[in-house]
């Protein structure tokens, strides 16, 4: 087409063929394309996020695991082996620390960066429920932690000579503590006004999980114990520590896991709200 043609015509070229969705003759608004349904969309987000691990996350997963194993080795110098309460606290705390590192710290960083660079626009311009994005991402980050938690718990069990019969509880702790911590991490990343603040908050949250989770409660001062009660990961730590004992109190394990689950639901609701707020300004 030449400029003259356009200029003399003064009107844009007509669409060559009438279109069902946009036919000018059709009175009233054009039909809306269907929105993505919750579960398929959640699955698609989860799968896409999980695939990112292959590209970007594997080195960080090693870091998370080695950090926890390193802490257990250090603590072995001051804590005796056997089924003692302190030994169990150290192993359970170190295992849950992997979850805190990845789900809280890395997810806060990820969402902080996504929001700052405008990457959220991609999701916000797709007809996908906010819940699917928030939950799918949080679930993927929680899943990243499964190998690290298991490796840490098994190495800890060997290092501190703990009975491993209750180790399966870790499989419940990962999704439940993972939901709570990933929800918090996502909310921090999405609400922090700047990505550096999101990173900082994620780091602080992880440090809290480290100090309050790994150090045996008997040695913590009273105000620190209140803080510990506020941190959702503490309940995961307590559940796992109980389960690693010679005679686990299953009622207490179930109680702690229930608290984890409830905070998980609340944290994910917070994350969904934060996502909605960040997506449309």
């Amino acid at each position, binding site marked *: 087409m030449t400029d003259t043609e*356009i200029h003399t015509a003064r009107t844009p070229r007509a669409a060559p063929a009438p279109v069902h969705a946009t036919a000018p003759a059709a009175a009233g608004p*054009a039909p809306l394309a269907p929105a993505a349904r919750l579960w398929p969309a959640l699955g698609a987000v989860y799968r896409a996020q999980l695939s990112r691990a292959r590209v970007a996350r594997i080195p960080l997963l090693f870091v998370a695991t080695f950090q926890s194993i390193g802490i257990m080795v250090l603590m072995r110098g001051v804590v005796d082996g056997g089924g003692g309460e302190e030994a169990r606290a150290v192993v359970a705390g170190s295992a849950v620390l992997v979850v805190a590192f990845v789900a809280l710290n890395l997810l806060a960083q990820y969402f902080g960066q996504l929001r700052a660079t405008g990457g959220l626009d991609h*999701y916000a311009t*797709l007809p*996908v429920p906010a819940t*699917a994005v928030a939950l799918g991402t949080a679930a993927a980050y929680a899943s990243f932690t499964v190998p690290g938690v298991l490796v840490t718990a098994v190495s800890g069990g060997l290092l501190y000579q703990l009975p491993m019969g209750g180790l399966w509880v870790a499989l419940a702790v990962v999704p439940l503590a993972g939901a709570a911590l990933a929800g918090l991490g996502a909310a921090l990343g999405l609400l922090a006004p700047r990505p550096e603040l999101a990173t900082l908050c994620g780091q602080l949250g992880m440090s809290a999980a480290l100090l309050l989770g790994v150090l045996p409660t008997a040695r913590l001062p009273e105000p620190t114990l209140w803080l510990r009660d506020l941190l959702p990961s503490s309940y995961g730590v307590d559940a796992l520590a109980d389960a690693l004992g010679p005679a686990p109190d299953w009622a207490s394990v179930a109680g702690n896991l229930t608290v984890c689950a409830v905070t998980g639901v609340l944290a994910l609701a917070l994350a969904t709200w934060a996502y909605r707020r960040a997506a449309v300004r």
Partner: protein
Amino acid sequence: MASSSARPGPPTARPVSTDAALAVRDLVKTYPAGRGRRGAAPAPVRASDGVSLDIAHGEIFGLLGPNGAGKTTLVKQLTGLLRPDSGAITLLGHDLVRHPRRAARLLAYLGQESTALDELTVALAAETTARLRGLDLAAARRERDDVLEELGLTALAGRPLKRLSGGQRRLACLAAALTGRRPVLVLDEPTTGMDPVARRAVWAAVERRRAADGATVLLVTHNVLEAETVLDRVAVLDAGRVIACDTPGGLKALVGSDVRLDLVWRGDPPLHVPAIADARRAATVAGRRWTLRLPPDRARALVTTVTQGPAFAALDDFTLATPSLEDVYLALGGRGEGLVRS
């Protein structure tokens, strides 16, 4: 939307045609100024300052302007990402100011950032986007394969976007944007960083969607050459306002028949030659480059002068060109620099 032909507005506003795919009226968006630490706060920035536009069905419509002109802010309001302070947006009969979420079900948007997709493979980026547009798995995979083939990305399907060149990454993002048919495409600088082959693939894909689906395309660009060749109509933006809106040919007619003469000097220009001294006064000087906008006969005379005698000895290069949209932009009083001419 009701007829608004009586609506007062800038000269660029056209009456609402009943078949407009997208109608924008008096859109205003103000950003608070950067936080002043002390003293008086600086005035807020009007990123959209009373914008009105009509885009017809099946039209390829461009927003042209330098960086900071307010193109992206405008597009974010049209895609439901940003709420306007005031004004109306009607997309295919839907009020987007009241229902911003409907935009996602009417249009496909290619933003400038790829961070959401960077760590996915090209294939998974396209497939996931299609799934999130509500397609079932089989349909999403079919669309993925088709669009990768169409854009020549099949060989790169298994590579993460992060490990691609800038142009390839952009093309992969476009592939994701094109999955799941949408009657309206909003593309923010789609060809940034692309080589000519990829650019051709982009324009062919866009044209195909217009021909087959009657798709309406809103394109953001700061590339004047692209604007002249692919757009049906262009709105020229400057400081949040539409300063002109017409076909590229119509806009160029605004600057009359003046041509642009660029002179690049090797050494000191011979200012003792009266014609050269006159030219110096009329020129926009940037280092060794003089740019003049002249009637054709005067330009011809000046070319004759500079291609002989002392002037030619000092001359490194010259180009004579018919007006471009850049000239239109400057003639209309555009303030910013930064339009691209390649």
